């Protein structure tokens, strides 16, 4: 009765192994190491409103001229370039932790965007994009006709 249980698909579960798996799962969940959500650059936050959405991204130290933001249908592309410091002869790094180079991030939104009305602002190293929903994509109320 307390032996390994035979499951419907003929799989035999080992209670000891199952406990070990649970334990490692718990360790992973409660580990103090901050789990990185998404390794893509830049990290983004999305805010949704009734008729539009706002996307914010942390991109410190970029020349706003190098931004390449485009919207096609329901796809938003954020591209740009962070320039490295140019060191002169005889100058050397003590430490280099910041990242630089080109980045490109593509986001699919849950609606089509009115590309003409997209607004982007870059302030304090944070990019903010307002994405209004396209008129033809807005939900239409169905009127029920009474007989």
């Amino acid at each position, binding site marked *: 009765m307390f032996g390994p249980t035979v499951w419907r698909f003929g799989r035999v579960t080992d209670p000891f192994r199952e406990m070990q798996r649970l334990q490692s799962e718990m360790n992973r969940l409660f580990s103090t190491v901050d789990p990185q959500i998404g390794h893509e650059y830049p990290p983004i*936050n999305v805010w949704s409103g009734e008729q539009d959405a706002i996307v914010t991204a942390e991109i410190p*130290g970029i020349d706003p001229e190098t931004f390449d933001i485009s919207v096609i249908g329901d796809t938003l592309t954020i591209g740009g370039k962070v320039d490295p410091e140019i060191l002169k002869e*005889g100058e050397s790094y003590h430490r280099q932790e910041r990242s630089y180079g080109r980045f490109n991030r593509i986001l699919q939104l849950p609606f089509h965007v009115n590309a003409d009305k997209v607004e982007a602002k870059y302030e*304090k190293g944070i990019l903010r994009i307002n994405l209004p929903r396209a008129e033809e994509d807005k939900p239409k109320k169905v009127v029920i006709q009474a007989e």
Partner: protein
Amino acid sequence: MSKESKELQKQSTQTPVETERTRNSKVYVPKVDIYETKDAIILIADMPGVDENSVDVILDKNILTISGTAEPLSFKDYSIAYSEYDVGDYQRAFTISDEVDKEKIEATVKNGVLRLTLHKAEKVKARKIAIKAA
């Protein structure tokens, strides 16, 4: 309750007690680049969300502390749908050697990046020694 569940609950006290901040916000360690030129040491820190009014640079004895506060964004009538980053404060400290002139530290903030120029003290600047012909 069984003995096992009690043991599980006790584990949280194992973490050492640290000094806590009064503000309930997360603290991040900014990423920095530090490089040395002939006359100065340049420190560049990524602190998205801060501006010149919300960043502090304090030099106390040999400890240089940089800290900044970023206000979380909130939009009226919008709700957060997806989040990959969190907004909080920044703090990081460095030990500075005596070769830095403590009176001459320049700091600027642009596009969420703090740039510090720590000028080297006159006496430690490399000097070329003229060799006299005997």
